[in-house]
C-alpha cells in the first residue's frame, strides 16, 4: 500500500503507518487557517520591515532612524522645539511651536507620507519603498 510512496523506503522505521490517518479534519482546518493568517500578516506588513523615518531641519537631515525603535526626538528650530514621537511602528509630530499646528493635527504619518512644520522648518518623512511615476 505504501509502494511507490516517498516514505516507502522509510517503511521499516515507520512501520507502514498511513500518514493520511495521522491528520484529522480539524488539523487540515487549523493548518489552512493559520497559513492564511500568516500570509495575510506577510502581505500587510510588506515594506514595513525596513521602514525608515527621516527628520529634516532646514532641508538638512537631522536624524535618520528606524520606525521600530520607540523614541521621542526633539528638533530645535527657529521658533522652539518640535517633538517627534516614534512608537509602536508609527510616527507623528507630538508638538510644535508653530501657530496653526497643521503637522500636529495630521496625526500618525502613513508610509511614504510626510509632515511639514513649515514655521519651524522641520519635516518628518516616513520612507517606505513606495513606487510611483516620480520614483522612476
Amino acid at each position, binding site marked *: 500500500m505504501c509502494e511507490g510512496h516517498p516514505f516507502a523506503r522509510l517503511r521499516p522505521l515507520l512501520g507502514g503507518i498511513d500518514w493520511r490517518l495521522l491528520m484529522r479534519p480539524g488539523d487540515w482546518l487549523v493548518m489552512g487557517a493559520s497559513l492564511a493568517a500568516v500570509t495575510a500578516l506577510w502581505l500587510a506588513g510588506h515594506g514595513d520591515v525596513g521602514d525608515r523615518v527621516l527628520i529634516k531641519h532646514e532641508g538638512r537631515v537631522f536624524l535618520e532612524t528606524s520606525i521600530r525603535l520607540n*523614541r521621542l526626538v526633539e528638533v530645535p528650530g527657529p521658533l522652539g522645539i518640535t517633538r517627534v514621537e516614534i512608537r509602536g511602528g508609527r510616527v507623528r509630530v507630538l508638538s510644535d511651536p508653530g501657530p496653526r499646528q497643521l503637522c500636529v493635527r495630521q496625526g500618525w504619518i502613513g508610509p511614504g507620507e510626510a509632515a511639514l512644520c513649515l514655521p519651524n522648518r522641520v519635516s518628518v518623512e516616513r520612507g517606505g519603498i513606495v513606487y510611483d511615476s516620480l520614483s522612476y
Partner: protein
Amino acid sequence: MPRTELHLTLFAADDDRRIAALAAAAVGLTLAEAAIPLPLPGVKPGLANIIGLAVLCRYGWSSAAWVTLLRVVAGALLLGTFLTPSFVLSLSGALLSLLCMGLAIRLYPRLLGPVGLSVLGAFAHMGAQLLVVNLWLMPAVSLLGLAPPFLTVAWITGLVNGLAAAWLIVAMADGRAGDE
C-alpha cells in the same frame, strides 16, 4: 530515653513514574536541541513539545502540564538558564501553548489531532515569547513587525512536531516506543 525515628516514605504511583520518565525524555530532547546551532535567537524546532503533545493526547492535560513544566524547569537547571530571561521566555511560551492546546482539545476533542494542536501550540508559544520580549525585555523596540517570519517558522515546526507526535502516539499504542 526512647529514641524516636522518623520514617518518611514517599509513594510513587504509576502515574508519577510515567510522568517522570516522559519528562526525562523531554529534557533529553531539550538538551539535544540546545546543541544544534541556530541562526536566530527564538527560532528553534521545539522538539520537546513532541513529548508534550503525545502526553496530552494520550494521558490528558494535567499530565501534559506536569511533563511540560518539569521539562522547562529541569531543562533550564541543566542548561544554566534558570531564572534568566531565556527561562522566562520558555516558561511563558510553554504556559500559553499549554493553555491553548488544552482549550482546543477540550472544545474539539473529535475534530483535532496532534498536528492541529501542535500548530496551535507553536503559534501560542511564539506569540507569548514575542509579547514578553516586546513588553518586558526590549520595550524600546517594536518587534511586532517581525511577527510574520517568526510565525512562519512556528507553522513549519508545529507541522513537523505534530506529525512526529502523531507517529509517536500510534507507536506507543502499538507498544513499539517508550510506553513504560
